[in-house]
């Protein structure tokens, strides 16, 4: 249904489970994709699986200079960036009273500040093209909070406020800015949870199961599509009913 032929998409965190699924979905819809991440090997593997129209763009989002260079590198490789998916995220969980300045700052830097800088970096081209899609991957915990994740939840809530503010500014130029808020999805990030923790979480999920990365990717694909042109400033929650907000 959604055709992205001729569009270029930059996906950060493409070496992770959700990022790889997003890149795959956009690619299947016809987009040329730029795969960014810190670990080159999984990016190369993904690019090899996708075949044509896939570019590997390694970037460490905790490195300010690398973040500044990424939009230019992506435009150089693909001819432009029509769609930006700020998916990369890290966790440095700790109880609030024990959280170090570094645990706080590193999560804010990668999950929020890098998304701001990348969005700013791609906007010029989108403004000129009078078309653009920015999709920020936030999290259910940005809306609900989560013990041990004060830093992560703050960054994810920050992404929502940023998305909405930017959505106001650029709506008249054919650029939409939205967020997707996954619940608990089966990825390396949630593999770190113990079985007891998983069981406790699933007890609160009406769907009774973890989400599949492809189900997050489907939401991103919609928000990246021409058909979503009238949808901006929204948060699309994909969480199996965990939080109906």
């Amino acid at each position, binding site marked *: 249904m959604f055709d992205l032929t001729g569009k270029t998409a930059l996906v950060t965190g493409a070496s992770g489970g959700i990022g790889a699924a997003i890149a795959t979905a956009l690619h299947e819809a016809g987009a040329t994709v730029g795969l960014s991440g810190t670990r080159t090997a999984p990016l190369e593997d993904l690019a090899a699986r996708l075949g044509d129209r896939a570019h590997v763009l390694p970037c460490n989002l905790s490195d300010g200079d690398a973040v500044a260079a990424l939009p230019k590198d992506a435009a150089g490789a693909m001819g432009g960036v029509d769609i930006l998916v700020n998916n990369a995220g890290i966790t440095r969980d700790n109880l609030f009273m024990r959280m170090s300045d570094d645990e706080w700052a590193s999560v804010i830097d990668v999950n929020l500040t890098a998304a701001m800088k990348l969005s700013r970096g791609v906007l010029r081209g989108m*403004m000129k093209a009078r078309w653009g899609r920015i999709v920020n991957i936030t999290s259910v915990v940005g809306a609900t909070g989560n013990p041990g994740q004060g830093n992560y939840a703050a960054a994810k809530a920050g992404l929502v406020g940023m998305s909405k503010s930017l959505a106001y500014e650029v709506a*008249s130029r054919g650029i939409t800015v939205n967020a997707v808020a996954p619940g608990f999805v089966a990825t390396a990030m949630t593999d770190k949870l113990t079985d007891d923790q998983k069981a406790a979480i699933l007890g609160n999920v009406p769907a009774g199961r973890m989400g599949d990365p492809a189900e997050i990717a489907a939401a991103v694909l919609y928000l990246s599509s021409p058909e979503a042109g009238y949808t901006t400033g929204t948060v699309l929650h994909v969480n199996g009913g965990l939080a109906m907000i």
Partner: protein
Amino acid sequence: MSDIADRVKKIVVEHLGVEEGKITESASFIDDLGADSLDTVELVMAFEEEFGIEIPDDAAETIQTFGDAVKFITDAA
């Protein structure tokens, strides 16, 4: 009129869709030519590209009128 002024005028006509006759030396982009704040950012971006110059944010804020733009670019180019 200088070549720079002609090129600036062309950009303003294209971006704001205004008649060339309205673009006088003292015409304010926002008050007289109907630009919104985002238009002024886009105009500055277009000037940077057309003339191959960098216009820092604090300088961009001083460019309010067509005359301001021509003067800044003439000095910078």
